Every structure is written in structure tokens, then in C-alpha cells.
């Protein structure tokens, strides 16, 4: 019998039939893998609490032909209180979704494991600006996986002063002189540039100290979201659609269209 004892983060947890749950786990040793948690839909299941979203646990897995099965688990950290704020919830789920979509099976990603663990932790203790944290997560997972967005200087001439711009296919920023003639380009202001450079090299523990203006957050978000779409196979990101829905319904409230 092949057993694997590993730390793991729950990336996805879906009902499977009437009794079980199907998990996507990010394990320390073997990276991303799929596992069945037998009986975890039952209200009295011993596994149920540990196979939900926002969990870091120590899992004993049995390796079957196509899937692993959860034999036992012990919860190490439960981040479920992230769900107490709807935007933290949206971002926490988005981080897991991004990891689940960008990682290949059969390869280990200890750096992504640590990144996700620390970002869930930051969502939970609420000291970091959640939008800045989200950009940090995106830039760092991209760079760990080898899609290193180029911010240091102009992609074409090495100009370091800016102002900089980017377009869908640039993979980084370029200066005003090197800007391609006919194409649509987007601004990347000096403050945004400084923020992006900082986030790429920041020690995760320092993220709570970073503040950014709305314009910077918006410009960097536009960049990372388009970068993800153009350069990776992430495809439609449900976490981002959900965030937009939440923001919309908040907008309705402010406009007086909905009760509160």
C-alpha cells in the first residue's frame, strides 16, 4: 500500500456524489494532486472540517490508480475566518484558484505553497491592503512559475526613467520613445512602476507595510489581469468574476438601488 504523509493546502473542494468530496490539494512534497475525501459530505464526518477551503493540514494519503484517498488528516491552520469579509473571501478563493489553474500536476512547488500559505495568513490578520496583497500574490506566483513580468526598465532601450506604458503582448513595460506606433497602449505611471518593482522583490512579511493610491492599484491590476490572460493558460478566473459581482452589488447599495 502506497502511503504519502504530507502537508497540504486545500485548493478546491467539491461534492462528489452523495457522500464524498473531491479535492485538489497543493502538497509540499508532490505539488498539486487530486484526492477523494470519503464520507466528507456527511454532517458527522471526521474529515469534513479539514477538507474545506482555506485549510492547511497534515494529510495521510493513500495513492490509488488515478486518485489519492484521504485516510487521515490533522488541521495545522484553519483560515476559514477569511470568509467573514466577503472581499477577503473572494481573494482567498481567487488565490487558490490561480494556484490550481497555473500549477502542473506531478511537480512540486514549495515556493507557491509558502506564498499561498502566507497570503491566506495576511488575509486573515487584515493588516495588509487586500488589493495590494492580491497584486503581490499574482506577481509572485507568475515569477515563481517563470513568467517574470519585466518592470525594471524599458523592454526595448533600457530607459529607467519612464514614464512607462504596456500593451497586451509586451510582457512588461516600455518607454514613450519605444512605444509601438499604431497599437493601443496603457499607462503605467511612476508610482505604479515603483509599486510593481517593490512587490516583485518584497519579503512577504513586509506586505502589511505597503500602501498604494487607488490609481496605482488600478493600473497594476489592469496589467496583471491582462498579463495572466495573455501569457498563461489561466483562462476565465471565477474568483475575479465573483469579486466584480460583489463590488457591483456594493455599488448598487451606495447608489441607493438596493436596501441597506
Amino acid at each position: 500500500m502506497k502511503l504519502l504523509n504530507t502537508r497540504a493546502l486545500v485548493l478546491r473542494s467539491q461534492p462528489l456524489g452523495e457522500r464524498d468530496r473531491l479535492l485538489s490539494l497543493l502538497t509540499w512534497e508532490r505539488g498539486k494532486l487530486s484526492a477523494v475525501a470519503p464520507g466528507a459530505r456527511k454532517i458527522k464526518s471526521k474529515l469534513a472540517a479539514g477538507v474545506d477551503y482555506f485549510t492547511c493540514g497534515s494529510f495521510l494519503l493513500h495513492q490509488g490508480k488515478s486518485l489519492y484517498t484521504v485516510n487521515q488528516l490533522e488541521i495545522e491552520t484553519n483560515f476559514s475566518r477569511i470568509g467573514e469579509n466577503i472581499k477577503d473571501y473572494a481573494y482567498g478563493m481567487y488565490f487558490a484558484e490561480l494556484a490550481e489553474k497555473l500549477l502542473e500536476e506531478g511537480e512540486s512547488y514549495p515556493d507557491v505553497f509558502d506564498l499561498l500559505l502566507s497570503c491566506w495568513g495576511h488575509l486573515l490578520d487584515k493588516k495588509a491592503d487586500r488589493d495590494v496583497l492580491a497584486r503581490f500574490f499574482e506577481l509572485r506566483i507568475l515569477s515563481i512559475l517563470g513568467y517574470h513580468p519585466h518592470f525594471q526598465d524599458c523592454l526595448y532601450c533600457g530607459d529607467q526613467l519612464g514614464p512607462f506604458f504596456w500593451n497586451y503582448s509586451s510582457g512588461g513595460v516600455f518607454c514613450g520613445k519605444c512605444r509601438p506606433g499604431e497599437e493601443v497602449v496603457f499607462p503605467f505611471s511612476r508610482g505604479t512602476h515603483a509599486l510593481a518593482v517593490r512587490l516583485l522583490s518584497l519579503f512577504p512579511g513586509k506586505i502589511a507595510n505597503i500602501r498604494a493610491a487607488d490609481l496605482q492599484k488600478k493600473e497594476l491590476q489592469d496589467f496583471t489581469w491582462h498579463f495572466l490572460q495573455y501569457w498563461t493558460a489561466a483562462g476565465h478566473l471565477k474568483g475575479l468574476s465573483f469579486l466584480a459581482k460583489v463590488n457591483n452589488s456594493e455599488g448598487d447599495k451606495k447608489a441607493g438601488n438596493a436596501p441597506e
Partner: protein
Amino acid sequence: MLFSPAITRLVDVFRRLPGIGPKTALRLVFFVLSMEKEEVEEMARALVDAKRRVKHCARCRNLTEQDICSVCRDERRDQSLLCVVQEPRDMMVIEKTGQFKGLYFILHGALSPVEGFGPEELKIPDLLQLMKTGGVKEVIIATNPNVEGDATAFYIAGAARPLGIMVSRIGFGLPVGGDLEYADELTMTRALEGRREI
């Protein structure tokens, strides 16, 4: 091809049902084919008929054939007490306990990026409208005791608080992570009794 086009088509139809894989679908198809013609016609009619008649109650979104369901029309029920559940079957579990005499609101899901359910999809604005104008004094949130159910509960509680409505969450006796539809009556009764304000 091993089976006729009609059989293949029916297998595909059955496979759209939850929890039905290709083998089970094929078994169901063989069973249907072994039934009397009248029985099969009755079955098909029942499907279409149910789909045509059943809709969401305009007040609580329970499944009903009327505009307002029989629970909402029952005058003996306490209008000031509202229980929010994810699914109609969760409401049935609570009804079976006989412990709850208020009215319900059924979300038909939980706030979930994975399912694509935001506040609008769950008709949470309608729920808030009901809290504002329906004489509701206390709301008990009985969503599933897992991350998605909790996030939904906190979101609703946050929106209800400014309305001066007391909001509680069922809890005691419910372990974390499972689905409410599998709770027995005793567990559910204790969960209702052990609700806590959030």
C-alpha cells in the same frame, strides 16, 4: 455503434442528472425500455408537468405551484422570525424537527466564486427587502457549516445589522464542514436551540 441513436440519446440525457455516471445511465435506460409504454408516458408527462407548474414562491423562493407558497400563507406562523437556508431540502430538514414556527427564505445556493453565485444570483437584495418591509425581527441563518455557508452568513448578517434586526447562526452540535441536508432531526434541533448571534 453498439446501441441505437435513441438509446445513446437517452443515456446522454440521464447523465445530466447529478451523481449519474455512464454505467448507471445505461442501467436506467434499460429499465425504462422494459417498462410499459403507458408508464413511460406518465413519467415523461410528470417531468414536463412539474417543470411547467413549479416556480419559486414570490416571498420566500420555496418551490411552489402558487405565487405564494403554503408555508408563507400559513397565518399561524410567526412573521417576525425568518430562517435563511441554502436549499429547499434544508428547509424540509428543519420542518421535520417541528421546532421552528417562523418563515423561511431559500437562497438556492451559497455565495461561491466556484459556482458563480454572487449576491444577485442568490436574490440577497430581495431578502434584505423582505427584512426591511416584512416585519422581521429575528433572522436565523442556517446555511451549511462550511466556508461557503459561513461566508454567506456573514455577508447577510453584515447587511442586516444596520436594519436593527437580530441575526443568529445555527451552531451547537453541528461539526464543521458537512452538508446540512445530512443532519438528522436531533442534530438539527440542537443546532437551532444553540444558535448564536453573529
